[in-house]
């Protein structure tokens, strides 16, 4: 290109070629640093909390979660990755978390890592991370949770609220490619062909697999300084996210307000969204069976979300809601509510997962609100799940 006319003070100062060189070098340096930051673990990580999750615009990356797991997990111990949503995250429990109790109960042969995240679908975040670790940690168990009934139907094959993480791992080549899921992904792509935000998300993640800018920003934001304002961070928004304490997320406590419509509706919706989930088997004894339609669809969806290698290592927890709220349902709704749990467990097992119903006999004191546990509830959860985890480990041949 010919030398053009420079203009203004900037023009006098500006030397184009050194500038281009500087930009190219800086860009390359960022890419290299971003690539290097893929192996930066989140130092001091205990679990996701407000300040290190997408609620405050912090999007952990698949590679850094894998690095965090690598830093935490010992290759000779059985890795227990806790996935799922805020219930398993321990929101409302205070410290120490239920996963600390679980670790104590399981003993030194196991190592528990809590990767549950608010709003995560059963196979998201913890599930995705577990899948990325399978090669290195074949002795691995994923504990995740789902709602009972139709509400527990897994998300689309790539997740729901945190699907960015799936695509991050997918384009970085960290995931398996089972045919069931690939088919599910094709269906999602077809169904969302007109969804610009979805296409843009995938485009961004594909680009990031080459350039690592999310890893760089997330790594810097966790360790050095953040740049995004959020009301929860207020005056300290530039502080490194890793310096925030894993404060309890404290969801709105509501179990003692009998008129809390949202809480009542939360439980009632479980029943309403699953009409005809369980049917009479037609036998003389008046037995009940899972509606074959639900069985077929949910089994297929579960198999799409969890590849075979992960499925067999997964313990799916179907946790009850606060009995205080359940008792506010009508007698018919209560009967249908209690039917949902064994039916959901049966579906999960039919899909090849291990599943367990918990909380049927918990008391109101074990719940922080209509679905999250208090500390006592968390301890009971750990007590209930520890034998299940051990049994699964035995079944998988990890222990005798």
């Amino acid at each position, binding site marked *: 290109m010919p030398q053009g006319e420079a203009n203004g003070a900037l023009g006098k100062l500006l030397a184009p070629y050194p500038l281009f060189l500087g930009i190219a070098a800086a860009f390359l340096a960022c890419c290299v640093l971003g690539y290097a930051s893929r192996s930066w673990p989140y130092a001091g990580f205990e679990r996701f909390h407000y300040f290190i999750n997408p609620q405050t615009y912090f999007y952990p990356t698949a590679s850094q979660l894998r690095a965090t797991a690598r830093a935490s997990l010992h290759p000779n111990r059985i890795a227990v990755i806790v996935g799922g949503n805020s219930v398993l995250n321990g929101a409302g429990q205070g410290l120490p978390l239920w996963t600390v109790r679980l670790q104590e109960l399981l003993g030194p042969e196991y190592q528990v890592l809590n990767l549950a995240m608010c709003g995560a679908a059963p196979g998201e975040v913890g599930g995705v991370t577990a899948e990325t670790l399978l090669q290195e940690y074949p002795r691995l168990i994923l504990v995740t949770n789902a709602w009972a009934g139709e509400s527990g139907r897994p998300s689309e094959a790539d997740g729901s609220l945190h699907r960015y993480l799936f695509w991050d791992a997918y384009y970085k080549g960290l995931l398996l490619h089972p045919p069931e899921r690939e088919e599910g992904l094709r269906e999602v792509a077809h169904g969302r062909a007109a969804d610009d935000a979805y296409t843009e998300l995938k485009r961004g993640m594909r680009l990031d697999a080459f350039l690592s800018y999310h890893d760089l920003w997330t790594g810097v934001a966790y360790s050095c300084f953040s740049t995004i304002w959020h*009301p929860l961070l207020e005056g300290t928004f530039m502080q490194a996210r890793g310096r925030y304490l894993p404060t309890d997320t404290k969801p709105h406590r509501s179990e003692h307000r009998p008129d809390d419509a949202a809480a009542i509706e939360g439980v009632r919706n479980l029943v309403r969204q699953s009409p005809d989930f369980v049917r009479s088997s037609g036998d003389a004894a008046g037995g009940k069976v899972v509606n074959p339609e639900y069985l077929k669809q949910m089994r297929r969806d579960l198999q799409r979300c969890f590849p075979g290698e992960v499925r067999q290592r997964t313990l799916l927890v179907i946790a009850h809601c606060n009995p205080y709220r359940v008792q506010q349902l009508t007698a018919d709704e209560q009967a249908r509510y209690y039917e949902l749990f064994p039916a959901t467990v049966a579906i999960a097992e039919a899909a090849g997962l291990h599943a367990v119903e918990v909380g049927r006999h918990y008391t109101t004191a074990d719940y922080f609100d209509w679905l999250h546990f208090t500390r006592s509830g968390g301890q009971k959860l750990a007590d209930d799940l520890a034998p299940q985890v051990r049994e699964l480990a035995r079944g998988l041949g990890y222990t005798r």
Partner: protein
Amino acid sequence: MHPVTQGNQQLFLSYWFVLYILPVFPLYWLVRAPALRLLLLLVACAVFHTHFAGAAGVLPIIVLAVLTYGAGLSRQRWACYATITLCVGALVFYKYTRFLAQQVLAAAFSDYQTQQAMQLAVEGWLPGAPPLAISFFVFEFVHYLFDVSRGSPPMKNPLDFSLYSIFWPSIVAGPVKRYQDFVPNLYHGVHNVCETDVAHGLIRVAVGLVKKFLAENLTQYLAHAGPEFGQLDMVQRWYFVIAISLRILWDFSGYSDMAIGFARMFGIRLPRNFDWPYLATNITTFWHRWHISLSTWIRDYVYIAMGGGRRGTVRKITNGLVAFAICGLWHGAGWNFLVWGLYHGIGLAICSNYRTLLGPVGRFLGARLEQNPIVSWGLTMLFVGVGWVFFFYPLPQAVDMLVSLSGVK
């Protein structure tokens, strides 16, 4: 930051856009023949416009562009005026029909449920989302037709006209171009683009990006603190007004900077749109520095076309108010935009005429303010900041906030 694009203002911040410019710029620089560069630019502009506007957004613009081009070629005054009417009609139809229908229904039916029922009934007749950037298209077409009708030479080459119409850097948020400047700049660019242009362009884009980033953070703050405005203490309320003012400036001017920067990377210079408006020491100067391409368009094609200040003070003030009302409504279909425009119209009328109207007192006041630029700057910023509350919030909420700001509530 998370990869989600929303709204017209985010087009330059999308991954699609990144992937789009990656081949466009190098190809443009590598192709040495100006004619090929023009063709490449046209294809790139068409791809950009079609991608973001979609077929439903492109079609009305094509129709208006073809008619504008034809009317310009004919050089017939009636054809130009008819096409101006059509363009303005299209703008009103797409951008304001829904708002107008809501106002008519609200006036006709006092019962909210009836209003809603009627709204549903007329829904099928109302246009959907307006075509991407229709306000900019219409203003540029009107400028072109008006100038041609007054004797300026039309653009004969359809390529020139097409590029003037859909030049992608300025398609979404301006600057509003003048074809007499744009076409020579376009040819200068395709013939002479050089590394200095690219360097200047890159720096301008970077400045724009930083402004957009700061504006986004302020948007978060405003979205959080806005609903709790009444609970803030007085200092925080004024801090909030400052945040609105900075957010609007950085958002608008950041986008303009990026547009100007990208154009410069093609070697094409677009007009400056913001010139440190918050350093203005009176409203007149503020409007010489704020959204310059829009304010000069309003001046030339509304204010002066209506007679400007040539027919006495009353007519001058009336023309100014009409011009600013249009300026306000151009930003969006809502009473708050109209009020914001009129507010500035009144401010400008006072600023331009108080020395004459108040006689010796006015002249004394004017002299004192000139001697104390910090005071006049403070008063100007106070006026502008209060105006932004109207611009940013629906009218009832804005009034509520201003009452809170005054300390009455």
